[in-house]
């Protein structure tokens, strides 16, 4: 297919940013468009004569170019499967599939444009007024409104772009690469600072890029200066999205391969805001007809992209930028039919036209036929970074824009946001600000150094305390607090007429289709605070977030309320300054995953993985019930490496154990193990595990797998803050050991074959004892004889590097004993049969000790322990639920975990009762040993007596009865099997 000719393209321009030697085509709503390298999508479309790019939000009016920049509200397009692309900023690429959004059936003929006829019903707050009552019709409203959604389309098939993240620590970060920003960057680097220069557009230079010969010469000089300056990192197509406390600055880099964005988190010593100024649209009837453009848009089209913006123009100018636009238009061969000078009272009353400008009606009563109306009526200071730094910019009526008021020490401003002035004055100001930024960065750096203990200010920095020479570019570091502040010349502030709305009403917020009439109506309805009027009309709440329309909104609200702009105030600029993709915020998946040393064996034996906290564990190896039976009848081995392990040493360890466990630890003999429960200070069960005494001053504590880190921190908290005089040293050794539990009646037989240095006989190594010895030839193994599964079992902690070898040896040597692995699921079955609770499963964040059936463990006669007061009171008032064993009367029904236990009987699913919740099932399984359903449950204390009948509501509502069992244990309540 041949591309449409570039019929609006001009001959070469001195500052053009297109490469005419490289051309390509892309698709626009199915048509082929030619472009040059360096073109934005919209500059290429405009070069081919396209004038309409989208339809507006509410009224579906045709929209064309307005700013020819990232902010252009009419140029938000779909590119491939990426919606909402800022197409006046995004560079065109060969083969792109570009489409208009929010049009149906086509851009040219949009049936939704009929809503223009309804516009008197679509006034401010129409969402809130129209679609609320009657409430039962909301689903209908919703389905209709969905067709009017103003956005592109997202495909679920879009491949995820890998977003990356970066941390940076520049001395000085400069937001904005215009003349002042570039000068500041070079000067700061010259003073020895490491500088990051961030520019939102694709090229450095700001407004110099579309200026005349002298501007281009100055730009070339500045670019060379920055490029030749070591210590300046330049980021283009990147934006400072936010400034947070202590100069924590978010920079978003766009346009990386694959369309991904990168988030840079920068801790900046000094931030320099140099964002320049944003040209403000003018409000009058027809100000959104395609062909009404800002002066900067016209100058960009002509000078950067060599695109003729129209054929016959009317220019409304109130400043030098408008005058220059008129000159550019003449030079580009556009007939300038009229220059209307607002400084001497000229004004545009209205623009006529629908899909394109037909004529402009002027204040002098004349009507001028034209296809282009250019306005240059003033500037908005994008004070976002200043607001985020705590500043409250003030409105200067004489200059018709906001200026910084009071900035913190670590934030400076330069360029147009700080004042007006000639190009040389702006560069001079930037240079001074850059030197001052480097000076302050040096002082801040020195303060940071001084905050390091044992490191007073480095001697070498003292040397740099000399005032920075004008050109000692090799200084290396910012001069640390060159005593005197750098004198910064004042920038002049030029007078500028206040031009917001003309003599007619027009569009204020081009994104949200909010007119000046809407804002006046909102004020009239009583929404007289700017914050309220903004939310009610949704002005400033669209994709440009106020950058184009904020000041006009304030001015029109002020006028309608009879106040001044200063009295009306401003809405707050909050981060992010520019849109950020969720992918950039999320960044790369960097969550660590932990595997035990035995993982290769598990994988080779078809283990089904279970993600448990940070760990991947074998859930089962095919048949968990059979694995459980094998443990009850023969011997099984489970990988329990994730169990938390803390090595405790020192004479005061018993004090620590007594303080943090609810039970008593003073008399634990060497070689003995005890089960312990920890509660927090509110008496809630926090963790459990066993702790064994390996030597006189040496203990090994185990914790739950998920609680390992929290318990460590809990211990350290008490030791460091409450009892720093206690002699206890805590070392986490969770991953230093591979842990495995050998469980079942044949476990002793198996271990006898591979263990050295330990007498495994019941009389020599009894239940709840610990030994160290050799297993499978590996020294330094710890063996605990404990019984989470309820069977005779030994938990082995083996130096991690030997874990796999020991595991394989056990599997090999136990073949004739019927050894088999078992996973987490079989262990859960076995412990439930035995009635052992799991913290976090059978307890929750409100479960105090006596609610977890721990009466036997809690020793209220101890002087003190964490949580004691609450537990004493719970003991006294007998409050809270109770943990009980529960068996459904119909043993074939396994109530899912979290099933409610309800008041009443409801036998046989009659539906009787079941109104009040009196408990819940916390654990439930089909017991392979008993061949029936078994549970643990929380019930109100009055229902906790053995034999009490309760009613369980299954999901779906069926009620079944169950009885509270005498013990938590369903299998071997006497504990004989563990003690053989």
């Amino acid at each position, binding site marked *: 297919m041949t591309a449409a000719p570039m019929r609006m393209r001009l001959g070469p321009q001195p500052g053009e940013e297109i490469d005419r030697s490289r051309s390509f085509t892309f698709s626009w709503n199915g048509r082929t468009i030619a472009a040059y390298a360096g073109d934005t999508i919209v500059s290429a479309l405009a070069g081919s004569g396209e004038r309409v790019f989208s339809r507006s939000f509410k009224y579906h009016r045709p929209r064309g170019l307005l700013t020819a920049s990232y902010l252009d509200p009419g140029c938000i397009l779909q590119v491939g499967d990426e919606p909402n692309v800022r197409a006046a900023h995004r560079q065109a690429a060969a083969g792109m599939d570009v489409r208009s959004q929010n049009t149906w059936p086509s851009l040219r003929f949009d049936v939704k444009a009929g809503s223009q006829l309804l516009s008197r019903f679509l006034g401010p707050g129409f969402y809130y007024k129209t679609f609320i009552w009657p409430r039962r019709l909301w689903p209908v409203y919703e389905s209709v409104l969905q067709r009017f959604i103003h956005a592109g389309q997202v495909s679920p098939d879009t491949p995820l772009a890998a977003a990356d993240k970066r941390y940076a620590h520049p001395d000085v970060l400069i937001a904005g690469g215009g003349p002042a920003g570039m000068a500041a960057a070079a000067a700061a680097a010259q003073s020895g600072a490491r500088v990051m220069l961030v520019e939102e557009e694709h090229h450095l230079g700001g407004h110099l890029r579309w200026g005349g010969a002298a501007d281009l010469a100055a730009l070339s000089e500045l670019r060379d200066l920055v490029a030749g300056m070591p210590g300046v990192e330049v980021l283009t197509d990147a934006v400072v999205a936010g400034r*947070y406390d202590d100069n924590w600055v978010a920079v978003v880099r766009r346009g990386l391969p694959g369309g991904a964005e990168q988030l840079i988190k920068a801790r900046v010593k000094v931030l320099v805001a140099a964002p320049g100024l944003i040209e403000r649209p003018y409000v009058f009837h027809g100000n959104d007809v395609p062909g009404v453009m800002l002066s900067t848009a016209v100058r960009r089209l002509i000078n950067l992209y060599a695109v003729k913006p129209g054929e016959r123009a009317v220019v409304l100018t109130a400043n030098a930028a408008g005058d220059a636009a008129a000159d550019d238009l003449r030079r580009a061969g556009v007939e300038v039919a009229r220059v209307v000078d607002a400084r001497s009272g000229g004004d545009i009353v209205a623009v006529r036209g629908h899909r394109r400008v037909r004529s402009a009606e002027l204040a002098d009563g004349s009507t001028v036929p034209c296809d282009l109306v250019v306005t240059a009526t003033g500037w908005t200071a994008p004070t976002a970074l200043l607001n985020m730094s705590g500043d409250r910019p003030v409105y200067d009526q004489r200059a018709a824009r906001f200026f910084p008021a009071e900035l913190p020490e670590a934030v400076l401003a330069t360029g147009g946001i700080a004042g007006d002035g000639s190009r040389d004055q702006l560069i001079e100001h930037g240079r001074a600000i850059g030197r001052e930024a480097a000076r302050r960065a040096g002082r801040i750096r020195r303060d940071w150094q001084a905050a390091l203990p044992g490191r007073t200010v480095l001697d070498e920095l003292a040397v740099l305390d000399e005032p920075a020479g004008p050109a000692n570019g090799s200084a290396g570091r910012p001069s640390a607090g060159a005593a005197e502040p750098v004198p910064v010349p004042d920038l002049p502030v030029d007078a500028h007429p206040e031009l917001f709305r003309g003599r007619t009403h027009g569009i204020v917020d081009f994104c949200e289709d909010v007119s000046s009439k809407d804002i006046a109506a909102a004020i009239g309805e009583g929404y007289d605070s700017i914050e309220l009027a903004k939310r009610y009309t949704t002005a400033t709440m669209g994709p440009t977030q106020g950058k184009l329309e904020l000041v006009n909104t304030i001015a029109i609200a002020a006028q309608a309320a009879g106040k001044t702009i200063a009295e009306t105030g401003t809405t707050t600029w909050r981060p992010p300054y520019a849109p950020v993709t969720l992918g950039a915020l999320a960044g790369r998946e960097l969550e660590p995953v932990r595997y035990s040393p035995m993982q290769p064996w598990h994988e080779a034996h078809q283990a089904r993985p279970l993600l448990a906290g940070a760990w991947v564990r074998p859930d089962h190896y095919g048949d968990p019930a059979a694995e459980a039976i094998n443990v009850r009848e023969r011997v099984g081995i489970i990988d329990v490496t994730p169990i938390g392990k803390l090595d405790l040493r020192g004479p005061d360890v018993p004090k620590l154990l007594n303080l943090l466990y609810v039970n008593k630890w003073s008399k634990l003999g060497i070689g003995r193990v005890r089960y312990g429960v920890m509660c927090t200070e509110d008496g809630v069960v926090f963790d459990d595990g066993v702790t064994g005494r390996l030597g006189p001053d040496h203990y090994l504590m185990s914790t739950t797998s998920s609680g390992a880190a929290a318990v460590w*921190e809990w211990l350290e908290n008490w030791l460091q803050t409450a009892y720093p005089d206690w002699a206890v040293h805590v070392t986490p050794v969770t991953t230093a050991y591979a842990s495995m539990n050998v469980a079942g009646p044949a476990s002793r037989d198996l271990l006898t074959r591979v263990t050295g240095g330990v007498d495994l006989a019941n009389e020599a190594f009894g239940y709840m004892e610990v030994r160290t010895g050799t297993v499978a030839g590996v020294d330094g193994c710890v063996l605990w004889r404990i019984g989470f599964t309820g069977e005779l079992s030994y938990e082995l902690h083996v130096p991690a590097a030997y874990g796999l070898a020991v595991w394989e040896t056990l599997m090999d040597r136990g073949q004739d004993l019927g050894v088999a692995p078992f996973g987490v699921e079989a262990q859960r079955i076995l412990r439930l049969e035995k009635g052992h609770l799991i913290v976090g499963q059978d307890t929750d964040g409100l479960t105090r000790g006596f609610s977890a059936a721990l009466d036997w463990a809690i020793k209220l006669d101890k002087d003190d322990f964490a949580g004691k007061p*609450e537990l004493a009171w719970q003991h006294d008032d007998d409050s809270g639920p109770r943990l009980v064993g529960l068996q459904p009367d119909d043993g074939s029904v396994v109530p899912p975990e979290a099933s409610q236990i309800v008041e009443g009987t409801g036998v046989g699913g009659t539906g009787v009762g079941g109104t009040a919740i009196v408990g819940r099932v916390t654990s439930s399984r089909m017991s392979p040993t008993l061949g029936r359903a078994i549970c643990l449950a929380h019930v109100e204390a009055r229902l906790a007596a053995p034999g009490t009948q309760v009613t369980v509501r299954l999901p779906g509502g069926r009620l079944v009865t169950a009885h509270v069992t005498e013990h938590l244990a369903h299998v071997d309540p006497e504990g004989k099997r563990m003690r053989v």
Partner: protein
Amino acid sequence: MIQIRCPWCGLRGAGEFRYTGDVRTRPDPASVTPQEWRDYLYFPANPCGPVVETWYHRMGCRRFFTAERDTATNEVWTLEEGMR
């Protein structure tokens, strides 16, 4: 993100730390009333101005320390390591 001054590691981003509450004296468990104990657990003063609080440098030296911070300005002065 504010910076917290760790007495061992210097100024570090607050994300490396865990805030563990303002410094208050733990009531004597032997004599405390439920009201006093629960005030201690659940009702920090939360003033606008200087507070003395405990921070834990969990991603650094893993030391607990006491810092004085102005909640209005986030200015932080480190007081001492250890001791509550």
